[in-house]
């Protein structure tokens, strides 16, 4: 749970959506804040905080925050 809280914080920081309430079912690529610059920021934040890198091809198959979270877990 601690890890999930940290994950949500990283997402909010990367996408600059600190005020938004996020559930793990959220389809983050549908946010208006999601673009190539946000993707870069997110990649850097995930590398820094969880020591994983997410390839462009991985993002294609990841839709919800839960799926992204599961992907990070599987890489560790």
């Amino acid at each position, binding site marked *: 749970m601690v890890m999930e809280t940290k994950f949500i914080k990283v997402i909010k920081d990367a996408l600059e959506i600190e005020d938004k309430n996020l559930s793990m079912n959220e389809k983050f690529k549908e946010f208006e804040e999601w673009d*190539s610059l946000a*993707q*870069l*920021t997110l990649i850097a934040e995930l*590398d820094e905080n969880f020591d994983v*890198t997410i*390839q*462009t091809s991985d*993002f294609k198959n990841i839709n919800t925050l839960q799926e992204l979270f599961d992907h990070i877990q599987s890489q560790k």
Partner: protein
Amino acid sequence: MALLQFDQVGICGLAAAVPAQTILSREYTQYFPAADVAEIVAKTGIEERRFAPEGMCSSDLCFAAAEKLISDLDVDKSEIELLVFVSQTPDYRMPATSVLLQDRLGLSKQTMVFDLTLGCSAFVYGLSVVFSLVQSGQIKKALLLDGETRSRVYNPKDRRVAFLFGDGGVAALIEKDPKYGKTFFSLNSDGSKGDLIKIKAGGYRNPSSAESVKEKVVDVHGNISTDEHGSMDGADVFNFVIQEIPNDIARVMEAAGTDKKAFDYFVFHQANAFMNGYLAKKLKLPLEKVPSSIREFGNTSSVSIPLTIVSQLQGKLEGKKKVLLSGFGVGMSWASAVMDLQDCWISDVVEL
């Protein structure tokens, strides 16, 4: 593992030339709204770039830099016995630009010259080749010329690449002398990532055709390009850099038997402020030892390392300075070096 080591070979001076034509990124708004452009500039940190006007080539910038360096250092041209020209924007498909530069610079017909076609790693790769030839002992002085007109490679209607690249040319004079210490290089390649940065057409695999020069929408964001313009997957290039470069730097430092604390400067390929900033943070480097020319010249591919040295370190290289150089990009190709600069001469930047 391509770890090379040289002794008593060094760079005695560096010069750079850039086009006078200055492009202000925030005013480069003919194809995109100013607000979008401002957001991109905030991320890339590239406020200005230099664009070569029509008719000006990489070789012209290198020629100007070489003449400046030769004149400042009062070099006897007959002592220059090797010239290597590094670029992916040559004058012609043939002959090699280096050969034409031999004549333009008035070098002897007994000068050994050739071109080396790599991108962002090419200055470091080029240095390793020149050091190797100079160490053989038969060459008195060598010129490494490195120029790019990347502004012409990318389509201004493709926002993924339209705000990054600029033009420039440099000259480095390399010689053998006991005053220079040991230099270490680590040289690498990964062709499986060849598609990450690519110009698809215009070579011999996909020759130029009416189709290859046609503008088309290339992604879901509506970016427009042609098969003869460069494309780049910025996110995966970023992934590549943060995975490979820290490892390569550790490798070359280990080979050199040194560590981060020993260095005066870390000079990286200038990709963009976001990538370079993250790389410096990941490597835990003190920012005052990481010079940057991203703000004023942008990404000039292989030229960016020496252009950063010439534009940012003039007056700061007296005596012996230990530097780490690391170039990475198209190929993918990457190279790092550990060297001591010994009273390295830096000429004023020439504007053409």
